[in-house]
């Protein structure tokens, strides 16, 4: 807007004096005498302003001009006086370290930019657990959580480390004199150096005892394996070689398990001869269950019976078998046959923290001589160490007032152990070494901050034979202190824990630098003799276990506990994990009981849809021996076993932070010492709950969206003609493949790169790590429950989940069902559905409907086959999104960075949270469209790297954030113009097909048909 106003610069100009006129004509009186100086050599010699000085001036003035030109004022920018040699602005640094959040372990790489960790990426050394789960991916944000405790506090008022250590010291001394105990309560400790410190405590204080306890406990399983191998640790499962997998209630693919099994599982799931077969017997429709070839609904109380029955079938023994449904038996028979046929190459899992069941599973594996092959009892996994018994002992000690000094570190009993909240106060002195003032810390005398794993040093033995280290990737953000140092201070030892770790490494005769570079070292394959006797012991104890299992408590309603993205709840304040839709229910920001449609009818539970599509659900009141959980929302879940209710742990926090306080209900309150399920009384409550589900249509409506076939058909026809029919257009020139039809000569996509992505629907298990990775990599805003409820989630990449329906076009025709009735019926998922997962991101169509309709050419096509989105050209008509058949475009409805509505959820609204933003990706303004870019920032970076090297790009030199995060290798990205690339190869695969190719969009993303290995 040009303005007519004229502002005079001074009275001279106003008076229009000669001076002013002169100035006006010649505003910059002196030009820089560049020519004069640089041109005349002699002058240069004589003059005392050297060329260097001149360049300095130029440099300064340019810099000044640049600064002056900056639109936004630069806040707190301090230039490097001496640039750290490690840090080059714009170039990321990677550090190998270990991700440990109290529940999981993973060997990871941390990407840092300008000294800030901004991304967690899978470890590249193939160590134990070197994949990244959704939780691992998201953990980087927990570092920048503004709810973290910044300095020691005593109750409400601020304190400091001196006071804390002094207070602890005196309390411990006092406890000794008073004959009370000095107790350290932690979650699982599998760090040798930390153990060392704890041992020193034990040595110094005879009244010291260490309680290890895990919120999501596997204590009883550990007891079993301790009995079998003499080693309190879970066995190492090797799924690579497993041809038959039977899981009774174990959700072994989801994060709940100490060992990551997804990648090995995927290896066996590749279609072809020798593809593994997976049976699942469970109550809740788990993510693992939805990947099974055959799934049977079984009540949690019948798990034992199922295992006992299976044991009899495979071993010919006749141990006691509890009540069990006929169809469960039918499938168990089939499973048994398969297992027997694959002795030594099969595996049986038992779910939940139930000793008897675990023993039966061990016995079955023993009978199948799997122990030592797929179940490596001798190779111990130490990630889970918790012991429920020791916690209940502590509880009674506290009750009896026998605890003089209680140090709680990395555990939150007040939240996760029912009744503990009142007991903590009974300790004479209590200190919480914690990351935030959580439910427990806020009850302790003192609370002091410990560093986040990205700020700390440590070493670990997560599994026998593997020695891992953790190193800080950023200086501590707060006045925190490693718990180990606090404990050592009791002994007057002021060594830094850092040095303890380094000397521990050195003591093992390892090079500190080498191990820090790799993030760990493989000392041995970890196999030990410990497991030798296990099989025999397992078989011997089978009948006793069966008796035990048959005693399983049962009732009309069994509440079966499970874990979602937030896991046991350690990262409950991480918005990325709440925004990530549940793989099965696709519900965000909630936990709820899942209930079968039949039971819902029985209880009068309803899930109704509002006029804007948002779903509301009835609430239930659950009562487990005396404890009542009020207004628990109920979600009608296909595949839920009758008489069971699934309830996720980790929600219902009250003192975790603004994101997750009072989100969901606390399932732990119904959980007695880590039990797998609880028998409950259930009544319908008055209240109605608002769900935020991202998916309304649950079935494929008879459309070819996920192309599916059975292994038999697949093997029978290797061309795929019969089971992967390609759409064709009938033109004057005869019929043309929909994917090649074109009205005009094609644009050239051959000379440069042509980026394509292959998505293998057999490998995708639906875990959602890719979704979170994409969320982080591309600065996707978090929009919170209310907006998700309005179907305004911003995920660039989503994992669609479809249930099978009992009605199909064929069946309807056979039963003579009318067309309206047919479609109505096809919308209804089957009561025990088959489930498919389909990751969908921008398909980068080469005939993109979105591009043609944009009035301002804000979205156009690149020669490399990318569908570009030009944010600063977009005017936000949303026409492109409407015209996208895949509905992958996302619109910025609000200014998520500023709008108060999102202060609670969007991390980038506070200075700390903003540090996680990826500097390579624009944060989109309000009113523009955004979508998957195939991580163009990574493409460009890799191209430049190659250019700097002066070499052609190598396949696999880089990949997109999603493909990188996928531990099952479902996503593969690359250049199809490079014949040697992996993606070029799979494009020719018989399973390959394009989503909605009959629309003629010619996508750059293609899918590999799903093959089920049904019996």
């Amino acid at each position, binding site marked *: 807007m040009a303005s007519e106003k004229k502002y005079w610069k001074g009275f001279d100009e106003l008076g229009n004096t000669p001076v002013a006129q002169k100035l006006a004509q010649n505003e910059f009186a002196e030009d820089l005498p560049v020519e004069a100086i640089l041109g005349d050599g002699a002058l240069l010699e004589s003059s005392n302003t050297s060329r260097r000085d001149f360049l300095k001036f130029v440099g300064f003035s340019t810099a000044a001009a640049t600064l002056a030109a900056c639109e936004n004022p630069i806040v707190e920018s301090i230039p490097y006086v001496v640039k750290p040699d490690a840090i080059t602005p714009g170039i990321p640094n990677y550090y190998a370290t270990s991700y440990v959040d109290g529940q999981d372990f993973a060997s990871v790489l941390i990407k840092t930019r300008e000294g800030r960790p901004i991304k967690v990426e899978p470890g590249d050394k193939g160590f134990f657990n070197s994949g990244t789960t959704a939780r691992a991916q998201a953990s980087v944000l927990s570092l920048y959580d503004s709810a973290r405790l910044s300095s020691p506090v005593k109750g409400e008022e601020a304190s400091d480390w001196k006071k804390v250590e002094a207070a602890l010291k005196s309390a411990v001394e006092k406890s000794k004199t008073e004959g009370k105990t000095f107790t350290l309560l932690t979650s699982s400790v599998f760090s040798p150096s930390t153990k060392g410190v704890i041992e020193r405590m034990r040595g110094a204080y005879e009244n010291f005892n260490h309680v290890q306890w895990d919120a999501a406990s596997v204590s009883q399983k550990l007891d079993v394996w301790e009995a079998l191998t003499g080693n309190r640790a879970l066995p190492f499962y090797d799924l690579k070689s497993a041809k038959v997998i039977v899981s009774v209630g174990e959700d072994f693919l989801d994060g709940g398990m100490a060992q990551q099994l997804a990648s090995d599982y995927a290896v066996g799931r590749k279609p072809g001869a020798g593809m593994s077969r997976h049976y699942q017997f469970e109550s809740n429709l788990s993510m693992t269950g939805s990947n099974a070839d055959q799934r049977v609904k079984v009540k949690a109380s019948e798990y034992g019976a199922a295992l006992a029955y299976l044991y009899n079938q495979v071993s010919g023994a006749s141990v006691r078998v509890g009540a069990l449904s006929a169809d469960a038996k039918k499938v168990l028979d089939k499973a048994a046959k398969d297992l027997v046929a694959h002795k030594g190459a099969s595996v049986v899992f038992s779910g939940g923290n139930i000793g008897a069941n675990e023993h039966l599973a061990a016995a079955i594996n023993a009978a199948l001589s799997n122990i030592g092959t797929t179940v490596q009892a001798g190779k111990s996994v130490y990630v889970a160490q918790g012991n429920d018994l020791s916690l209940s002992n502590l509880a009674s000690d506290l009750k009896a007032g026998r605890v003089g000094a209680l140090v709680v570190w990395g555990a939150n009993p007040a939240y996760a152990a029912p009744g503990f909240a009142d007991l903590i106060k009974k300790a004479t002195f209590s200190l919480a070494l914690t990351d935030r003032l959580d439910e427990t810390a806020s009850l302790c005398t003192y609370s002091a901050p410990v560093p986040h794993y990205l700020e700390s040093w440590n070493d670990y033995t997560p599994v026998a034979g593997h020695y891992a280290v953790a190193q800080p990737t950023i200086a501590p953000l707060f006045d925190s202190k490693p718990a180990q140092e606090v404990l050592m201070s009791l002994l007057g030892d002021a060594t830094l824990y850092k040095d303890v770790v380094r000397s521990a490494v050195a003591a093992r005769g390892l090079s500190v630098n080498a191990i820090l570079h790799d993030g760990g070292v493989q000392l041995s394959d970890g196999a030990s003799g410990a497991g030798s006797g296990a099989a025999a012991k397992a078989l011997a104890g089978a009948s006793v276990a069966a008796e035990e299992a048959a005693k399983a408590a049962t009732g009309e309603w069994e509440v079966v506990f499970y874990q979602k993205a937030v896991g046991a709840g350690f990262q409950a304040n991480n918005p990325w994990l709440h925004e990530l839709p549940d793989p099965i229910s696709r519900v965000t920001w909630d936990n709820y009981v899942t209930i079968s449609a039949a039971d819902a009818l029985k209880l009068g539970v309803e899930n109704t849809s509002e006029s804007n599509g948002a779903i509301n659900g009835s609430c239930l009141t659950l009562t487990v021996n005396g404890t009542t959980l009020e207004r628990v929302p109920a979600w009608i879940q296909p595949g839920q076993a009758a008489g069971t209710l699934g309830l996720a742990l980790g929600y219902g926090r009250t003192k975790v932070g603004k994101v997750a306080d009072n989100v969901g209900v606390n399932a732990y309150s119904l959980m007695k010492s880590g039990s797998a399920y609880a028998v409950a009384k259930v009544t319908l409550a008055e209240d109605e709950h608002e769900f935020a589900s991202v998916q309304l249509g649950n079935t494929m409506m008879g459309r070819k969206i996920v192309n599916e076939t059975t292994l038999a058909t697949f093997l029978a026809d290797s061309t795929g003609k019969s089971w992967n029919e390609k759409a064709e257009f009938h033109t004057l020139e005869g019929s043309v493949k929909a994917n090649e039809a*074109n009205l*005009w*000569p*094609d*644009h050239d996509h051959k000379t440069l790169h042509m980026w394509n992505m292959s998505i293998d629907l057999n490998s995708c298990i639906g875990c959602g790590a890719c979704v979170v990775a994409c969320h982080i990599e591309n600065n996707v805003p978090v929009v919170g429950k209310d907006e998700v409820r309005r179907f305004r989630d911003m995920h660039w990449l989503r994992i669609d989940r479809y249930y099978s329906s009992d009605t199909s076009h064929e069946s309807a025709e056979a039963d003579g069902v009318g067309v309206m009735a047919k479609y109505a019926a096809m919308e209804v998922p089957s009561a025990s559905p088959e489930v498919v997962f389909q990751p969908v991101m921008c398909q980068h*169509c*080469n*005939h*993109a*409907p*979105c*591009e*043609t309709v*944009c009035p301002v*050419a804000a979205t*156009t*096509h*690149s*020669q490399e086959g990318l569908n570009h989105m030009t944010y600063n050209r977009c005017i936000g008509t949303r026409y492109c999104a409407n015209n996208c058949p895949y509905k992958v475009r996302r619109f910025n409805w609000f200014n998520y960075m500023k709008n108060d509505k999102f202060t609670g959820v969007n991390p980038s609204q506070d200075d700390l949270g903003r540090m996680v933003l990826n500097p390579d990706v624009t944060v989109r303004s309000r009113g523009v469209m955004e979508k998957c870019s195939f991580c163009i920032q990574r493409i460009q970076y890799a191209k430049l790297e190659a250019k700097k090297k002066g070499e052609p790009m190598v396949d696999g030199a880089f990949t997109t954030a999603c493909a990188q995060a996928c531990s099952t290798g479902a996503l593969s990205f690359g250049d199809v113009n490079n014949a040697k690339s992996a993606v070029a190869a799979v494009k020719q695969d018989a399973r390959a097909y394009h989503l909605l190719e009959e629309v003629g969009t*010619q996508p750059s993303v293609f899918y590999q048909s799903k093959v089920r290995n049904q019996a």
Partner: protein
Amino acid sequence: MHTTDSKPLVRALYDDDDVVLGAVKELRAQGVAVKEVYSPFPIHGLDKAMGLKDTRIAMAAFMYGLLGLTTIVTITYYQMIVDWPMNIGGKPNATWGWNMPAFVPVLFELTVFFTAHLMVWTFFVLNGLYPGRAPQNPDPRTTDDKFMIEVEDGDHVVDLLKKTGAIEITHA
């Protein structure tokens, strides 16, 4: 028109269009130069009777149309094909001809736009019409229900006018 002329003018007022038409014919038959006729609405056949030439404004309009068409063809060709060709949804950007079908609506609209507006401007200019111009009709009644003939003065022009049914005669 009459401004260039030295001879004084006589203005006769009528109250019916048919009479005016007759009068004009009569006067011209008698060799009286009819300078101008003011009427509240168009009288069919009057221009013939006064011997006015046909207006060529329609031909001008046609030219404007051509101008508009050329303009938009140039714009589309320059912007889409020459200056910054882009692959938009795989549509052809190599030649204007290939891409033209997508431009048809715009071609039409701009042609109409030019024709209509330039023609109306021409109309205003030719007629010397512009906001706030002083009324061109000497007698306000000629926009209501009266009609006025303006002739050059001469001998027994007045009687002639009377004979043709003028209800009022004034000398300008």
